[in-house]
């Protein structure tokens, strides 16, 4: 499934904390490498490497602006990521919400039992 593996590549790209920080910074608007270096405290080669990885999976786009390149988020890819993981997350949310109900019931019984007869 081509769509899924593309999405997955993007998901893996953002599994790393530093790349998430770059994405969060870009959420405020497009930036040049130097802006990101100043803001995040990473070295310029680090920032460039993260941007290259995220450009390769379409998480980030770049455009030329004079002598600089300005980077911005690709909202469509981020939305695809979310859409891809969402049904799986919903399945587990429903399952663990039911588990929560079972756990709450056991915990209530447990509290009563440990209090003993009054």
């Amino acid at each position, binding site marked *: 499934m081509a769509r899924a593996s593309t999405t997955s590549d993007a998901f893996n790209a953002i599994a790393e904390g530093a790349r998430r920080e770059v994405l969060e910074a870009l959420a405020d608007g497009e930036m040049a490498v130097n802006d990101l270096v100043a803001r995040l405290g990473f070295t310029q080669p680090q920032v460039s490497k993260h941007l290259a990885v995220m450009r390769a999976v379409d998480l980030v786009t770049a455009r030329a602006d004079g002598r600089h390149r300005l980077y911005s988020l690709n909202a469509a890819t981020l939305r695809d990521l979310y859409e891809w993981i969402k049904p*799986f997350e919903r*399945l*587990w949310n429903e*399952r*663990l919400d039911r*588990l*929560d109900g079972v*756990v709450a019931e056991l915990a209530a019984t447990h509290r009563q039992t440990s209090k003993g007869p009054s």
Partner: protein
Amino acid sequence: MNQSPGSRFGSAVVTLPSATQIQITRVFDAPAEIVFKAWTTPELVRRWWGSPENPLTVCDIDLRVGGNWRYAMVMGDAELGWHGTYQAIDAPLRLVSTEVFEGFPNGEAVNTLTLDEADGTTTLTVVVQHQTMANRDGHIDSGMEAGMQTTLDRLDILTVHKHAAAGCAIEGEPPCPT
């Protein structure tokens, strides 16, 4: 201080820590011992692992290292089954087991359940370690298929349950009868 019942509903978070892993995290307002019991006792697992529309028809748990487990449900006219073997048991903190979805028998994964208790709440973490990224992605995709089936099953009962499921806190709706 514990949250009110149901206040953590919908709070499970799924992340993909690496190319071959899935991680699921959820907090419970109970000691680890109780969460572990609900996770490993067949008559309790039956109450939460399957949905009301697709309940478990099989729930076998032989909780010892080397012991096997098997869950199954019926969807349409097919049985969907999952099984595996317990590899490490450190109740109530950690449980490692293999898992095979029987529709895809070559895709064995290793599940590690961790229960981390602090101040009366327990953080449950499940890490699913697949052998390949393709298997991991297929596992995520299966959520879409199961989710679609569930959605179809629920369309007609949605209205009835919406109120209760949301804890009667739906904006613009009348308050709960008390």
